[in-house]
């Protein structure tokens, strides 16, 4: 249940943000990462960002998720 994936922050509205990964957009709560900025990669768990992530590592992780999807 502690699964979490990196998604890119594309919009901020108060305590809510819109994140995007692989063409999927989602509204999330930003309460745990109040300093997050547009373009940041955030680790998303249960509808909230729990941490910010370096872009290079986030892209590598996303590529791996895509590969796992293909193999599944």
């Amino acid at each position, binding site marked *: *249940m*502690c699964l*979490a994936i990196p998604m890119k922050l594309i919009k901020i509205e108060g305590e809510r943000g819109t994140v995007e990964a692989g063409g999927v957009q989602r509204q*999330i709560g930003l309460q745990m990462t*109040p300093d997050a900025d547009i373009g940041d990669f955030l*680790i998303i768990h249960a*509808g909230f960002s729990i941490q910010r992530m370096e872009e290079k590592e986030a892209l590598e992780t996303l590529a*791996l998720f895509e590969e796992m999807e293909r193999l599944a």
Partner: protein
Amino acid sequence: MTLKGEDAVYTAQRLAELINFEAANMPMAFMEVCGTHTMAIARNGIKSLLPECIRLISGPGCPVCVTSNEFLDKAIALAERSDVIICTFGDMIRVPGSRCSLEEQRGLGSDIRIVGSTLDALALADKNRDKDIVFLGIGFETTAPTVAAAIIEAYNKRLDNFSVLCAHKVMPQPMKALSESSLNIDGYILPGHVSAIIGEAPYSFLADDYNKACVISGFEPLDILESILRLVRQVRKGFFFIENQYVRVVKPQGNPTAQELLSQVFEPADAEWRGLGIIADSGLAIRDEYAQFDADKKYQISIAPPIEPPGCRCGEVLTGSITPDLCGLFGTSCTPMHPVGACMVSSEGSCAAHYRYTLRDA
């Protein structure tokens, strides 16, 4: 460590060789505490890459699995009320309570909805002011701040029809109990996303007081192999500390904002764990300031004494005392299609992982 394709396979083999070489036939037992790790280990066949001397034991880190029947029975009792809508994460819906599961209760006409986030439950509360929305709060330090944030938002927006039936738990305390048990664990693969919130310090006692090897690990196959190698090295050197393999996500201090959310809304409380019993200060209770959002206090739910399914050995599986196949129900009367115990229901449960991956490969 996020490599692709052939590079990843080569690196995995190389890591496995290093583990084998450095372990040098010394028997070691490591526990992966987190259910997401249990699933990743099973799905990727990690155990088949390890030398025989290394044993991986699954721990109590599947939130659904460790949730007591009493909690489920209370949720079902609340669901029977016509003025209540229950919101739950999907994993909980099929877990058998003493008399029935939430899914079966929904079949009887109760309004029970699966949500992906507390935000969905808040939106539902806003739209249905004539109904009471009760969110089933289960999970560890990763999930609990999302519930804390929702309670604060409900408080600020005066959403009086929102409340939480709270069974949140924290990870370090049961690890203390496990370290004192007869399992002879040499080290822990520490939960990555719990650590993203709490950081490294809450685990220090495991290395300092109990001489356990400790590595905070990511969830990719290479992350886990690298973490096992680091555990082996700590054991071989006899030098124990909290090592962080998952640096791309886990900061040494964790997420202080999330920690503040937790302490603003919750306070430590004793909690019941399936298999481990009641552990002091291992749970999170909603503080009095937010009592109006505490479903337990709001509804004063009374239930009959909980009943455990006869023959089910989930408790022993959860503490790593037995492997799932040693339970008499496993694979016969208890299967993912017809689960008897929580560990077979949850996608992260040890029994489900064992059934899906080990039996198939055997």
